[in-house]
Structures are given as C-alpha cells and as structure tokens.
C-alpha cells in the first residue's frame, strides 16, 4: 500500500465526500418518499429546506470532483515514477485489476454529476420545481456510483505492489498486447479518421438543423471515436513517435500538459451535447448548449488536427 501525500489527499477528500453525500442521501430518500409541492405541512416545508441543503452538498461535491479528477490523473502520473516499469499513468492504471474500472467510473460520475447540476439549475427556473423527485432519485443512484468509485479507488491504491514490475504504455496499447483496446487501436487509420471527421461533420449538420436527439447521439459517438483516434493517431503526432500510443503521456510536462486541455474541451463539448437529449430546455437555453457543445468540439478537433498538420508542414511526411 502506498501512502504518498497525493493519495492521502485523495483519501481525505473521499472521506469528506462520503460524509456529506451520506447526509444528502438520507435527505434525498425523505424527499423522494414524501415530496408534495402543493402541501403546506410542516413536513413539506422541512423537505424544501432539505432540498436546498442536499443541492448545496451535491454542488460542493461536483465543484471539488472536477479539479480532483485532474489531480487523480496527476497522482497516477506521479506514481509512475516509483512503480517499476511504468512510464506514465497508463502503467499505474494497469498495475491492478481495478485501474481501468475506476477510470471509467470516474469519467461516468463526472458526466452524471454535471448532468445533476444542470438538472438542478433547470429545476430552479420553475416555481413548482418539476424535477425535484427526479433529481433526488438520480442522486440516490449517483451515491451508489460515488461509493463504488471511492471503494474501487481505495482498493486500487491498496493493491499497488511496488515490488512488481508493470507494463508501460508502449506494451499496454501495442497491437501485440492482445487486449480489446489494442485491437481497436489497430484498426485502419483512414477508417478511424473518416469516422472522426465524419461524426464531427454530422454534429455540425445536426446543429444546423437543430436535431437534438441526433446531436446527442453523435456526441456520444464523438467521445468514443475521439478517444480512439487520440490514442491511435493524433497522440503519435503529439509524441512525434509512430509507435507511441498512450492516453496519458501527453499529460506530462514534456508535452506541455496538452492532454489536460484536450480532455477538458472534449468533456465540455460532449457533455453540453449529451444533456440536450435529457432535459427540456427553452429554445434560448438549448441554443446555449448547442453552441457550447459545437464550440468545444470544434476546439478539440482543431487542436488534435494541428499536430499532424504541423508535423507534415515541418517534415514533409506523415508518420
């Protein structure tokens, strides 16, 4: 078990999350069971206060979770310095059986917490707060995911064995590793790039015609195809090495931490696109989500495109 200052920080914050989220869970269950917007009873007024308190707790958790996710990635990257064989966060993730699951769960929770925040904001726009039960039911589900995340994270840090040698990203993502992700990354580059730019163009078309469900589905596809092409193709131009396929190394100082900017713009772009399918917004509000989504997806697309184009301009060849 490793207890670096970064891991201790994560443990302490997870403990705080657990404490506050448990209070919010208790209150959420009461709200879901007894909420009646028209009642003027003692219980209903109390539930209205509970609703404010719980919403404040969830907002607090989200406000900390966003930078904490970045800090978590940073911690993985830092741990790679003391784990034999690991060259970046990928090696640390692969060092235990929990690594990949915790990473996926963290990303899923980020999207779901962000969705909760938008739902809560939307709820407060109406006098009768139509989404109260829905948002607190969602929080109950989120609590389970949050606890799972905390447990998995603790298990992962607890299971890291400093005596063992782990694989580096070069091995994990190489086509010879035989993993599912490796087989996806080995797909034809032309096909992957056609899918990437094709999906982006379709997003732009769905925006033009304001087809919100299609826009959301395409954003979901865009997350997947973006991650695949980032590792399989664009990343190799960031590293300027055709064999280096890794979603973590560009988070390091050597690459100017460019990965953080790429992931953040991808998250903002796709989240704003996805949320359109789940909440009824006014035309003006929808427009804001459409534009934010398109803007950040465009920013992501232009940013990743920059690397191979610049490489070609400088060297006159593709990798």
């Amino acid at each position, binding site marked *: 078990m490793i207890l670096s200052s970064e891991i201790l920080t994560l443990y302490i914050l997870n403990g705080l999350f657990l404490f506050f989220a448990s209070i919010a869970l208790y209150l959420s269950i009461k709200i879901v069971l007894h909420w009646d917007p*028209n009642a*003027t*009873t*003692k219980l209903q*007024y109390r539930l209205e*206060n509970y609703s404010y308190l719980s919403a404040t707790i969830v907002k607090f958790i989200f406000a900390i979770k966003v930078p904490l996710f970045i800090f978590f990635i940073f911690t993985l990257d830092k741990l790679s310095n003391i784990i034999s064989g690991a060259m970046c966060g990928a090696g640390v993730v692969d060092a235990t059986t929990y690594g990949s699951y915790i990473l996926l769960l963290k990303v899923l929770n980020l999207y779901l917490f962000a969705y909760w925040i938008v739902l809560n904001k939307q709820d*407060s726009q109406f*006098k009768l*707060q139509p989404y109260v039960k829905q948002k607190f039911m969602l929080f109950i589900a989120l609590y389970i995911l949050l606890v799972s995340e905390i447990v998995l994270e603790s298990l992962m840090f607890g299971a890291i064995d400093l005596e063992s040698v782990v694989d580096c990203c070069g091995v994990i993502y190489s086509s010879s590793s035989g993993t599912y992700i490796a087989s996806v990354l080995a797909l034809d580059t032309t096909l992957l790039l056609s899918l990437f730019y094709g999906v982006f163009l379709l997003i732009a078309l769905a925006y033009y015609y304001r087809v919100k469900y299609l826009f959301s589905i395409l954003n979901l596809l865009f997350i997947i195809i973006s991650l695949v092409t980032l590792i399989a193709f664009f990343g190799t131009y960031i590293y300027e090495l055709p064999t280096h396929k890794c979603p973590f190394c560009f988070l390091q100082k050597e690459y100017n931490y460019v990965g953080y900017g790429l992931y953040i713009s991808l998250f903002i772009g796709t989240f704003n696109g996805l949320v359109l399918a789940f909440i009824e917004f006014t035309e003006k509000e929808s427009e804001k989500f459409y534009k934010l989504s398109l803007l950040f997806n465009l920013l992501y697309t232009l940013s990743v495109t920059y690397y191979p184009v610049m490489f070609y301009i400088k060297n006159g060849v593709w990798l």
Partner: protein
Amino acid sequence: MIEIKNVTKSYELNVQESVVALKDIDLRLNEGEVVVIKGASGSGKSTLLSLIAAMSKPTLGEVVVDSQRVSKLSDRFASLYRRENIGFIFQKYNLISTLSVFDNIMTPLIPLNLETKEIQKRLKSVMELFEIEHKRDVIVKNLSGGEQQRVAIARSYVNSPKIILADEPTANLDEKLSLNFIEIIKKLKGEKRTIIIATHDPLFFGEDFVDREIEMRNGEVIS
C-alpha cells in the same frame, strides 16, 4: 390582497426544544390598507412581516399575496417577488454605512439593469419626496437618525412596491421625528399602497390614517 392562512412559525432551538413565534394565524389584509400590528416585544410582529416579505417560510400554513403562494416560492422566486412587490423598512434601517445616500437608495435598482438616466430620474423624485436630496452625496453613517430613516424609507420606496412593511420604524426616533415618519406614511397612503407597520409605539394607535389595528400577544392575534 394578503392572506395569511393558518400560519404557524416555530424556531427550533435544538432537537427537543422549539420556540413558537406564531400560532395558527389567520388574517386577510386588503389592498391599499394601512395596518398597524401592535404588541409587546416577542409577540410575533416581526416574524409575521418576514413571512409576508417571503424572507422566511412558515412551519405550517401559507401566505398568499395577490393569488401568489409566496411561502411556497423557492429562494430565486422569493427574491423576484420581493424585488417587485415589497419595500421593507427595518428597525435599525440596515443601510450600508459606508455608502452615500444616493448609492444606498439605488441598491434595489441594481438588479433591474435600468439605464443611468432612468435611475437618476427615479432617485431624484424619491429623494425629493422624502426631503433628502440635499444630502445625496453624504455617507450615511454621518447622518442623524431621522435622516437615516428617511433614506431607509426612500430605499424601500424606490422600486414602487405594492406593499411597504415597516418593522418598529420609530423605535430609534424621538417624538418629533416619529411624527415626521407618520406624515410620510400619510403621504404614501394616498398612493393606494398596502402599508403594514409592526410597532408598540402608541403614536400609531387610534390614528385616522390607520385602517386597522391588529393586536398580537405570544404569537397569537388577540384582536
């Protein structure tokens, strides 16, 4: 019309103990009325005003103002309701002591995003009405009690609220200034605004400009 329907308000001191500030209050106050709520300290007058202003919520029952269930409003809508309907004169004025008279009176207009010209126009007319224009640039902490109160009244009035609530407005004033305040209220009564004054000052009792007097004791309306 302001309807207070079977309202009870209690404050929890701890898990077992609570103080009941209002007990099952049922009242109807008509538009344009000047109402004096009288009673000793702790009788529940201020609590009642804060419920009408949607600054707090009842424990039981509801407050309805012009068919709007104000006690059921969320914070955001309660703020909007106050902004559009309520002018509140506090016992201790609650002015921002480091700002000028002009800036204090202007504060309720800030969220309205009015044009500067419109703000200037409104403030000029309000300061004239309450005879405070000559002090417009004076920092309020340098004003006398009576002047501070005129600023507080001007601030409560600048949004043209339908309802003006005054909580012990003459508690910190001498008799002459209290009579000045009464003159101001008489002036406002002519504008068909609902004015509710919570006070234990006998100067307000039995006056012609008062349409109703409501007496409270221990959280209950007794007459």
